[in-house]
């Protein structure tokens, strides 16, 4: 049975790799095949995978994860400014700094669990946010955000003679270079930055899968289910929860670093509570505690954010132009709150809907539907054989 599990994992890993690498082709028909969005899929996928290790696996609901994302971004941009435009040192620094920062915050927040923990992480994130805006301006450049300038030292890169800002690169491959192909009337865009993020996502996914299947992961699941019993099994849970917190903080740092790699600037708004809320939503939407769920959730949210933000009143009018004028105006008036700049309202509503109706997330919802269809096909007298829901006797 365990061999089968491992084979399943291999299959999942292979499929996942293929799907991610073929992203520019698969998503082009949906209007999502352009580099900027594809990169965001990967980056937020990594962010959500990391968050899931803490929330889905260990059961600690953090509302401050955006802080680590922001810290990762700032660290990466500083590396671009001071050392080199190569992304590798920037990412290493982003992960290390985010790890240290999460070690500090985790050490304090994890003294409590449950609601206290959520509140503490939220408070810390807000504190980091307001610090980034005010006191730490020398480091964060306050409201304007941290940006590259021509005067940055960039010790390893040598003198910049072009007179324009350099772009980030991976040992000479520039992140924003894109190869375009026409294919069946669509433009397929293969972007270096996307493939770099994609490789990171695949690595991040692989690591998460190993953690899920490891004895350490089993301990984390045990913490989520029953900490009391684990204590009476002689296990001090603190190091485990702290390790989970730091790992997920480092994932967030990696995601933040990658954000800076694709677009080398960092602003405090990345650390805001709404950003922390977004990753929570991605994770629960996809299915907390599942491997694939968070990535799907991240893709789902970012895709619809992209679509909804583009819709404006003109588009709405053109959609509903077949209706009588009064009705058309009414519908457009109602809908315009939810699209364009109103995307956050839609996000909040979606958040509530998922929690109320779909606490298990999209993956569980899909399996319910499959079960339901199967159940309908079978005659009602035969029981669905599910070993997990069988009564004990």
């Amino acid at each position, binding site marked *: 049975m365990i061999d089968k599990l491992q084979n399943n994992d291999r299959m999942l890993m292979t499929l996942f790799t293929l799907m991610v690498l073929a992203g520019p082709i698969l998503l082009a028909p949906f209007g999502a095949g352009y580099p900027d969005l594809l990169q965001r899929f990967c980056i937020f996928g990594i962010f959500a995978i990391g968050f899931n290790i803490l929330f889905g696996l260990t*059961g600690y*609901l953090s*509302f401050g994860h955006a802080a680590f994302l922001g810290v990762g971004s700032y660290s990466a941009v500083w590396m671009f400014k001071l050392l080199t435009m190569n992304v590798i040192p920037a990412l290493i620094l982003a992960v290390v700094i985010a790890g240290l920062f999460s070690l500090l915050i985790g050490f*304090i927040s994890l*003294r*409590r*669990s*449950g*609601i*206290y923990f*959520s*509140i*503490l992480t*939220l*408070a*810390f994130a*807000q*504190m980091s946010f*307001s*610090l980034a805006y*005010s*006191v730490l301006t020398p480091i964060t450049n306050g409201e304007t955000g941290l940006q590259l300038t021509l005067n940055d030292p960039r010790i390893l890169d040598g003198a910049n003679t072009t007179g324009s800002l350099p772009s980030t690169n991976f040992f000479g491959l520039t992140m924003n270079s894109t190869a375009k192909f026409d294919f069946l009337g669509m433009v397929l865009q293969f972007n270096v930055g996307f493939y770099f993020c994609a490789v990171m996502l695949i690595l991040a996914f692989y690591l998460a899968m190993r953690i899920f299947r490891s004895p350490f992961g089993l301990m984390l699941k045990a913490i989520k289910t029953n900490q009391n019993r684990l204590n009476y099994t002689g296990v001090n849970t603190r190091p485990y929860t702290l390790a989970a917190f730091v790992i997920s903080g480092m994932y967030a740092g990696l995601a933040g670093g990658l954000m800076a790699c694709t677009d080398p600037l960092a602003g405090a708004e990345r650390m805001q*509570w*709404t950003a922390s*809320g977004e990753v*929570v*939503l991605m994770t*629960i939407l996809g299915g907390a505690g599942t491997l694939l769920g968070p990535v799907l959730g991240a893709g789902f949210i970012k895709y619809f954010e992209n679509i909804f933000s583009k819709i404006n009143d003109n588009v709405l009018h053109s959609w509903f132009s077949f209706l009588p004028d009064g009705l058309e105006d009414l519908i457009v008036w109602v809908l315009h*709150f939810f699209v364009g700049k*109103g995307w*956050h*309202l839609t*996000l*909040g*509503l*979606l*958040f*509530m809907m998922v*929690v*109320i109706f779909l*606490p298990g997330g999209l993956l569980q919802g899909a399996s319910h539907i499959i079960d339901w269809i199967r159940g309908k096909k079978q005659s009602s007298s035969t029981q669905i054989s599910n070993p997990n829901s069988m009564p004990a006797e």
Partner: protein
Amino acid sequence: MDAILLQILNGLDKGSAYALIALGLTLIFGTLGVVNFAHGALFMIGAFCVVTLQRILNISTVTIDPTKTDFLGNPLKVKTPYIIEWFGEGAGMAIINWSVPLAILFAIPIMLLVGYVMERGLIKHFYKRPHADQILVTFGLAIVLQEIIKAFYGANPIPTPAPEVFRGSFDFGVLIGMAENAVIYPYWRLVYFAFSALVIAGVFAFLQFTTFGMVVRAGMADRETVGLLGINIDKRFTIMFGIAACVAGLAGVMYSPINSPNYHMGMDFLVLSFVVVVVGGMGSLPGAVLAGFTLGILESFASMNQVKGFFEAIYLPSIDQIIIYLVAIVILLVRPRGLMGRAGVMED
């Protein structure tokens, strides 16, 4: 001495706001067992009740005054609020001038209604769900409420001035026999503090002296037992939620002249109020009030130049921004249950 007194006074208004929000949070948490992440949004809605009332009062008729012209040479359009037309110049202006205190009357039914709808429509269904779900759904609600306000009122703060008589400052120092100009304090802040004290006293008196309050206090001590007594807990929960919503809303109404209402004020105050609740001790009403005022005053002290300078010298710049969090950390490390927390509350 005068500097210390001034800082204490300055801390009182923010402390009052923290205390009022924290009080509502604790009431909801203690009776319903729900952590309401949308509580800050109630505070914000209260503040926007003032904005709405002001807009309603300023709905005007437009008449053309042929005797005057505007700068383009066209006849001058004169806006006269209906309220002035109806009540005459004097009374009408007075009503507009006093719109903030008037908004209390306006806000109470609105807040009760909002509280009722929120509890019956949403929170009720989450009593039996895990705490994480409660946090998540109220968190989503907070986003929704904030975005709705933003959609209707825009992203910029909207000034809502206090009645003219309270707009200036007065020399508080002289009143208590100090030198002149030693302690200058704005009138409205004193009004806010007095109002908060009144509301807090009202809530405590209500809990202390009514049978309803007794049941609530019993419920906070041991929810299951009260359920067994056969008391109609459901209805009381709804009322309790309405009261908490009202307290938060009124705090928002009266705070609006101090801090112009904006759509993100709810979350700003919620985070700090949570810290207040944690410091005071989850489930302890006196703890929430005590911690609210203490932290407000501490924050105000930390913004003093001398204090700031001292902390800058030991490499802690802008101590006023983070003092509350630092205090919270220290308290949690030393007294994990908060100042007045009881054992067994939220120990999970």
